[in-house]
Every structure is written in C-alpha cells, then in structure tokens.
C-alpha cells in the first residue's frame, strides 16, 4: 500500500486545509442547488399531470425522483466495481477510497429508490409493498451492498480491508443482473394480472423533468462523491498516521523504561 500523500490537489480542486471542500466543489454545489430548485419547480409545478391512456395523474411526478435515483444507484455501484478492479490492479489507497465512497452513496440512492417506489405503490396498488420484480430485486441489491459496507467495517487492517472489499465489490456487481433476472423470471410465472408499473408515456415538459432529474442526480452523485472521497482519503491518512504515532509512543516508552529499542517493530493489523 502506498501511504496517502498530503497533497491537497491543484487548481479548482485544491482542497481547503480544514475540510473536504474545494473551489470546484463549492461551484458545483451552487450549480447543484440552483438546479435542484429548477428541477423541483418543473417536476412538481410546471409540468402537466399524466393524462394518457393508463393515466398516472399527479403520481407521475414521483417518477422524476424515482428513476433518477435508480440510475444514480446503478452508476454508484458500477463505479464501486470499476474502482475495486482498479484497486486490485494498482493497489493504491485512492481506488479503495473511491470504491468505498461510491458504495455508501449508492446505498443512499437505493434507499431513495425503494422509498419512492413504495410510496408510488401505496397509492397505485394500495399496498406499501408489492412483489414487483424490480422492487424485489432492488431490495436484494440494497442488502448486498449493506453487506459490502458491513465487511468494510469488520476488517481493521487497511490493506486487508481494501483487498477483500475490492473482490466483494466486483462479485456484488456481477450478482446484480443474476438477482435481477431470476427475480424477474420468478414473478413473471406467478403474476396473474398485469400490475401497473411506473413507466408511462411521456413527452414535453414531463420528459424534460425526467431528463433534468437524471442530470441533477448525477451532479448530486459527483458532489457527494467529492466530499465523501476526500473524507475517506483523510481517514486513510489518519489511520496511517495513527499507526506511526502509536509506534513512536511505544518506542518512547521502551526508552523511558531503560530498555533497548528494538531495531524494527513488526506490526500486523488484526482483522
């Protein structure tokens, strides 16, 4: 493992010494804030309710949040898988921090997806939960990545944690389509009546709201990632520093006791 450098980035991405923000992230944050306001205005007020054949009415507005957050979570988990593969290749802290941060934000997006889907289902189907294939496979995906985060918390040694999580990060992503198709197949056998699903025909302002919602979700993802990644990187630096500090303290203790200082201290992180 290469220990994280103290380099704080350059140009727009130069990080504030006391935080995770940079000029770049601040500018993006302001753009994001304005975009969210515009998005909410278009999605909730300006766009027409759905009046097509299988009309969703005002309910269609949930889609503007539901679909972008679903795309956000797939993006996040894809980035986790790529960063995990890159870690296994390059073995640098940065890729590990990227994979971890992305998985965490992905889990937030999955929760948003499940909640918006469930609220939509409550009004459409009359129940909070229906064994809809997409809802079910998303719930399984949520548990898969909660497991990934649980594994990360369970391993103390940074190198060991990075390597094992990287492998799990790749396997988890391979699992997503298997789970998706098996659940899809399972439900298609049992479904007697076609359950209405959240994909109405849309155009005009409604299409714009959906597309813009995706852009906002991506911007939100990037903005959250900038902060979470820098935090993860700082955590890794602190971990490395903490180990050095502990070593120095033990050496000082040994000196104070009048004992000989061991030439090298063998350390092994417990996992």
């Amino acid at each position, binding site marked *: 493992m290469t220990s994280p450098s103290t380099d704080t980035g350059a140009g727009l991405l130069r990080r504030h010494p006391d935080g995770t923000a940079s000029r770049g992230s601040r500018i993006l944050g302001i753009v994001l804030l304005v975009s969210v306001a515009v998005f909410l205005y278009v999605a909730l007020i300006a766009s027409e309710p759905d009046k097509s054949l299988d009309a969703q009415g005002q309910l269609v507005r949930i889609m503007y949040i539901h679909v972008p957050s679903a795309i956000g979570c797939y993006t996040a988990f894809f980035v986790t898988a790529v960063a995990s593969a890159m870690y*296994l290749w390059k073995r640098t802290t940065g890729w590990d921090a990227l994979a971890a941060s992305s998985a965490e934000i992905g889990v937030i997006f999955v929760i948003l997806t499940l909640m918006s889907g469930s609220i939509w289902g409550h009004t459409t189907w009359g129940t909070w939960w229906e064994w809809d294939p997409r809802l079910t496979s998303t719930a*399984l995906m949520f*548990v*898969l990545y*909660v*497991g990934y985060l*649980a*594994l990360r918390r*369970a*391993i103390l040694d940074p*190198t*060991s944690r990075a*390597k*094992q999580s990287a*492998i*799990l990060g790749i*396997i988890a992503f*391979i*699992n997503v389509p*298997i*789970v998706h198709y*098996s*659940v899809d*197949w*399972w439900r298609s*056998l049992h479904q007697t009546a076609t359950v209405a699903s959240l994909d109405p025909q849309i155009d005009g302002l409604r299409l714009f709201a959906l597309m813009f919602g995706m852009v906002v979700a991506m911007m939100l993802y990037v903005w959250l990632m900038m902060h979470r990644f820098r935090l993860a990187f700082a955590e890794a630096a602190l971990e490395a520093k903490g180990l050095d500090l502990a070593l120095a303290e033990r050496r000082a203790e040994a000196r104070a006791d009048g004992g000989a200082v061991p030439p090298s201290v063998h350390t092994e992180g417990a*996992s």
Partner: protein
Amino acid sequence: MPELAADSMLRDAAMVVGKDLRLEWRSRVTFSQILPFALLVLILFAFALDPDRRILEEATPGLFWLAVLFSMLLAIQRAYAVETADGVIDALRLSDLDPAGIFLGKAAGIGLHLLVLEIVLFLGVTVLYGATPHGGLLIVVTMVLATAGLAAAGSLYGVLAAGLRVRDTLLPILMLPVVAPVLIAGTEAFSAAYADASGEGWKWCGLLAAFSVLYLAIGIFAFEPLLEES
C-alpha cells in the same frame, strides 16, 4: 516433467476434501449437530404453519430449500472453523497447495455435506409433510446443481469471512442475498416436480447450472487473494 496445472489443482482439491471428510468422520459435527438442526427446522415450520390445513404440503418446496439454506450457513461456518482454529489457515497458506485446488476441495467438502443434508431433509419433508414428488429425475438434477452452486458460493464467502471476529454474524448477510436465485430456482423446480409438470422445472435447472459455473469460476480466480488476507 512439469505437472499440468489442472492436474495439480484437482489433486490438491482431492487432498483437501479427503481431509475434511476425515475430520467429519472423527468429529461427527455435521452428523450430530447440523443434521439434527435441519430436522428441527422442519418441525418448527410445522409449528409456524398449521399442519392440518395443507399449507405445509403446498409450501414444501420452499420450506425444503429454506431449511437447506439455514443448514448451509452452519455447514460453511463449520468448514472454515476447522481452518481458522489454531492457526491452521497459516499452515494452509504455507502448504504450497494450489489455492484454486483448496477452493475446489472446500467446495466439494461443503457440497458433499449439503447433499447428505438434502437427502435427509427430502426424506423429512416426505414423511413429515406428506408431500409426494413425481419428477424424480428433476428432483435429483435440481439437488445436484443447486448444491454445486451453494457449495461454490459458500466456499468463496466462507474464506472471505473466515478470518474476521464477526464472521458468524457477517456470513449470513453476505451470503443469503447472493444465493437468493438458488432459493428461487430450487423452489420453482421442486414445485414443478411436485405438481407433475417437470417440463417447467427444467429451465430453472439451467439457471442453477449457470449460477454454479459462474461461482466455481469466480472462486477459482478469487480464492488466492482472499486466502492471503483471511
């Protein structure tokens, strides 16, 4: 003359599975603890679902595979408990055995234990729940393919959790979502066999076969780095 990689892999796998079976023969942990647990689960299901109302019989395929999954968790924990105790895992790393061979050996050991569990559970649901299967061949093929998939995934996730202090609580949350497709496919194939409609069951065997091949492949490649860190 240099030995072929595949040959040494299979020879190492045979050594590992032989060791695991000898361990079981001497300790009888699966026989005296996991097997009774599996039967207990069948009895508990009967308490949860009133046995007089035929729910048990209708739900037999799903309950069977649920009992298999629960017992599987114990079998995997046992399979890696014998490797982590007394620093055995360091010996395994230093043993010069092919890691892919160790993976296949552990998977085969878990698979053989699971097969025995499944045969007993199958007799259990037949006797206790009164469910009579029709498609015998479909039942056997489903069991073999599902066991291969569960054993491969179990061997992989078992080593991932093996070295951790929280392994007992972490393994179920890591494994159960992953093997959910096996539960679905196994249940559907069994339902078809019980309903005397084997034709519908065979396509689920395709899913089980794909799952097994995928996890055997992942295990062969990913076991070495996982063993190094466990």
